[in-house]
């Protein structure tokens, strides 16, 4: 497994708040559009298809995490 699932943020709370604040006041479609863009930007930043696939597997509704 290449995907890092332990926190990499010095302050996990601050990272979460940044994501929450980004969508505050947005409608559902606007938030969905924001999320889609964020996914693309961050996926490209990671730049590793294996990591991306592992992340998708973790995020999928049928995975153990949800």
């Amino acid at each position, binding site marked *: 497994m290449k995907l890092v699932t332990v926190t990499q943020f010095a302050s996990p709370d601050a990272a979460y708040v940044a994501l929450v604040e980004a969508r505050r006041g947005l409608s559902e*479609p606007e938030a*969905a*559009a924001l999320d*889609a*863009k964020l*996914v*693309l*930007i961050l996926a*490209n930043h990671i730049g590793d298809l294996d990591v991306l696939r592992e992340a998708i597997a973790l995020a999928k509704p049928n995975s153990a995490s949800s």
Partner: protein
Amino acid sequence: MTQTGRTARYTYGYRRSPDQDARAPARHPVIVVGAGPVGMTTAIDLALRGVKVVLLDDADRIGEGSRGICWAKRTLEIFDRLGVGEQLVEAGVTWKLGKVFLGDDLVYAFDLLPEDGHKMPAFINLQQYAVEKVLVDRVLELADIDLRWCNKVVALEQRNDGVRITVETPDGHYTLDTDWLVAADGARSAVRDLVGLGFAGVTFEDKFLIADVKMAAEFPTERRFWFDPPFHSGQSALMHRQPDNIWRIDLQLGPEADAQAEQAPERVIPRLKKMLGDIPFDLEWVSVYRFNCRRLERFVHGRVVFVGDAAHQVSPFGARGANSGVQDAENLAWKLAAVLDGQADAALIDSYDRERAQAADENIAHSTRSTDFIAPHSPAERALRNAVLSLAPHAEFARRMVNSGRLSVATVYDTLLATLDEAPFAGSAKLGAPVPDLPVRTRDGRSGHLLEHLSGGFEVLYVRDGATPSAPDGVKLTVIGEDLIDEQGMFAQRFDASPGATYVLRPDHHLTARLRSFDAGKVDAAISRALGR
């Protein structure tokens, strides 16, 4: 698929063949079914290799609609070898730039010819009927091709050493025997049905209006593609220049569109007016399509070989239909000739299946991805697609994801016929790929290009280093630095050549082996391997 045809551009007559009066079925080495671009390429290539071909077509005409218009460099190189490349380039519109717009804004532009010094351009646009006319003329020049119009295959029987077919003509039925039958009879292949083969794959729900429009407009000579343009909100549009003031326009209509109703001029003309504004235009041809991506599981069934749309079908985004068909034809032609000549065993034809199945899979994958991007399957997919488009003006990575069609390039065959490199080679030449073109000068001082000096057979390119190598019998040896002068150093660069470097080319100009120094035994072995021996 539905279409409103235009009248035929060229009509040919049925003529009775002496085979129809034969007491026993006449036997031929190769029968090609279907006189479209792929069937005619197969026939011409075989005839130039000394194989007699009977070419059957169920119609008496060519030119029902424009259909394929984009001819890729690799296809043009093949046509050039067959003697019609320059004529086609002259008749067509040469282009290499593609532009993608979101709304009114340019988000992405690409140049399809990253290397210079090639004889053939990245692409030309030319109506399929114009290409077919040139190919028919070439066919008629070749005594080894017997072209029979209004000859329809209605029955087929596989035998151990060949195929027996029943052919229907205006004079009734007759029977023919052939060592090999090449099915080039298109997406609705009758031969495929007669062999009893399924043709499974994906049908895309979205419908597309395709119109050829005649107008005196000075839009740029480039492929222009719009996502969500102001003149066709929420859908995509494509515009492409053809010769004679004809423009190809594709408009996405969505899954709900009524194919029949959308072809009516009173529906089409207002759509086009929104796009073209006040420019007066005439409607040349209109059609409404739904696209399929599918292929036969195997392209070789006994002595029946499927090429082009009869074997595989793709959406048009990427110009991978007719282009891949022509490349099928050239892959098959030299192999059939080698088998019929006794140089190779019939098993060589299996390598056609492997190599062109690889190409078909690539083409289907690219074409499916493009179609999925252009016509997302669900609102959720559309949201992601739109996110890519809205990021594209701001981020390079997103521009690279924008997919309005990845345009046809030749396949690099990952093939058992090739001899693996013993020493590393850099350069743009790749093992298994067609060799790159480049400018050369001949011994007597004429400027030209590498590809036009290649034979249609196996060929060895050897970079002069003072030795006096000799090629195996029947194989042409070209000495770089003597027969052909690498004036601009492009051979050195593209082939990563050093003195003594030796390259073995297949008859279809795909690179099949390369060595750092000439070795007669290794060259011989590489050629045997490429013949499947």
